[in-house]
């Protein structure tokens, strides 16, 4: 069944600016959907519209079969984890967890039971009587999640919950969030600008740009079959190489080089390939790259070079001997991508 249905949601501010320009997304039961995109792409606004913190200008938000557009956040059966945790600083952890339940009129023995359960689940039982200021960042993060868990929501909303943590802790918490969400088997939306977080956490990724959906798909789909040049350059590190070319009669021409391309399309195209999916064959044929700078990263190395006027980056296993001067690239058919140079859409 579908937990959340967002239908053609539009957010327009009083000054006429549109932050979300008609987005439709479904979140299935128990699914973790990640909204990813650069700053200002409307991902947080969309999440806040689901939470009820932003009004929906147009469109529908349907949670468990009920349109919630005009419901207060508290009546929507959602729980949100904020970027800065938003814990009540003057309350103990226990009271922080219990506050929402208390406001709902839950009997106090049930509150106690739920708080203890959440505390045990998140391994914060020993901190229950401390104040948030006495906790570390990771512990505060857990408390914030605990506050969401005790409410048994239909859906969890995470608004960049890890961006205040250091890199090591971030990796650890990322894994814990995923495990927790699997264990609770509750649908979740996770907003981030970090494509690594998006790739590792998501069941499905929604790539947003400029208030519109660029692509919805599993991490593998988004990575290996990006729908637009935006997605191609946003997902993956280093990003996909994009070079303008010309397609005619099944041949792709890039500068002086041409290679066979199984496509009926003709005319100017943008040719894309992932840095880690190019082969350097010793042969004289292939796409010629003038080598510039080489970065050693330990397990592999990044080779920055130029094809004509265009910068390209190629990743190579560090065990192979580093190339020198000039290299020839060849590609497997499924690793090449063609985009319309005007619309950026995949052809």
């Amino acid at each position: 069944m579908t937990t959340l249905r967002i239908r053609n949601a539009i957010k327009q501010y009083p000054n006429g600016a549109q932050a979300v320009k008609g987005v439709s997304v479904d979140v299935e039961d128990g699914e973790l959907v990640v909204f990813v995109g650069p700053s200002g792409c409307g991902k947080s606004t969309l999440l806040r519209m689901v939470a009820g913190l932003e009004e929906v200008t147009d469109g529908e938000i349907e949670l468990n079969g009920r349109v919630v557009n005009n419901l207060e956040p508290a009546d929507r059966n959602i729980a949100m984890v904020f970027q800065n945790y938003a814990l009540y600083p003057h309350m103990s952890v226990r009271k922080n967890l219990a506050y929402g339940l208390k406001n709902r009129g839950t009997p106090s023995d049930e509150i106690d039971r739920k708080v203890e359960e959440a505390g045990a689940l998140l391994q914060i039982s020993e901190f229950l009587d401390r104040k948030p200021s006495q906790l570390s960042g990771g512990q505060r993060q857990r408390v914030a999640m605990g506050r969401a868990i005790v409410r048994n929501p239909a859906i969890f909303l995470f608004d960049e919950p890890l961006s205040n943590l250091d890199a090591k802790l971030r990796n650890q918490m990322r894994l814990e969030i995923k495990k927790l969400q699997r264990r609770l088997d509750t649908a979740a939306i996770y907003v981030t600008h970090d494509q690594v977080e998006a790739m590792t956490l998501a069941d499905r990724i929604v790539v947003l740009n400029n208030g519109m959906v660029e692509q919805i798909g599993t991490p593998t789909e988004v990575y290996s079959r990006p729908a637009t040049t935006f997605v191609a350059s946003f997902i993956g590190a280093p990003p996909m190489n994009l070079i303008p070319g010309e397609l005619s009669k099944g041949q792709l021409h890039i500068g002086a080089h041409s290679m066979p391309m199984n496509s009926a399309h003709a005319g100017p195209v943008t040719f894309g390939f992932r840095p880690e999916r190019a082969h350097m064959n010793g042969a004289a044929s292939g796409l010629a790259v003038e080598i510039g700078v080489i970065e050693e990263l330990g397990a592999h190395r990044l080779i920055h070079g130029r094809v004509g006027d265009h910068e390209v980056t190629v990743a190579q296993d560090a065990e192979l001997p580093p190339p020198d001067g000039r290299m020839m690239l060849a590609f497997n058919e499924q690793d090449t991508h063609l985009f319309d140079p005007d619309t950026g859409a995949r052809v």
Partner: protein
Amino acid sequence: MAVTEIDSSAETSGTTKAASADNRPRRKTKIFDHVVLWLGVLLMMGPIIVAFTTSTFDHVTIHREGMQFGWGGEFVETYKNVLYQEGGFTGEVTGLLMTQNSLILGLGFAIGKIVVSMLAAYAIVYFRFPLATFSFWVIFTTLLLPLEVRILPSYEVVQQLGMLNTYSGLIIPLIASATGTFFFRQFFKSVPNELMEAARIDGAGPVQFFWDILVPLSKTMMAAIFIIMFVVGWNQYLWPTLMTTEEGYFTLVRGIRNIMQQMIGADIPEYNEALAMAMLAMLPPALVIIIFQRMFIKGLVEQEK
């Protein structure tokens, strides 16, 4: 020879020398700092100490010899008189009663101001209503209209409401506070918005959010404003003088003047009692500041968020 000596000593004891050379001017400034501080203390405390010692002499001595520096031995007698002797025109007002009136005025003034300005700031910061910013600036401009400027219309209003010679007439017209509203507005603006959103998701309505989250967060701020406002309220002179004509409502600050005035005539004014009353009048504000000092500084410099 001399040159080499200097060189070698610079080499061997260069660090210790530098350290001691560093220390000497530091000690000098330390002494200087303390001299300045002591001068300040003397300047501020001197008059109070002299007033206190003088108040322990009898009024004839004071009239004859001026201010006194020693211990006059009349301490118990004078202060007992001030506190318990029924004085004034009607002969029913004691120092104790005036202290009580002052306390009522000071507390009512401070608490009233905090309540009113917190609610006003809450409305301005957290609710979107037409002309919100405008109304804030209207409140703010009342800073340009202190009591002294609007004293006649204020008197008129209070008189027509029949609030002359009442505690409410003393307090209520004074509790609207632009300063308090401004402080609380700035404080509320610094509270992260996510707290309000989290509370909304937790099902807290506007009243609950105010009471459960904002009020506890504002504790130190409230303490700071309480201290300032209590002292200001305690020291009110002009307004009580106008509002209350019955001696049963007299405050300590007015009482001092009363003692001096009523004795003018053939008698020698009871200087000692006036000074004793001044000492008493200073005591509660000083106590409030000493007790709340830590919270006061905390409220001004840091916020628990």
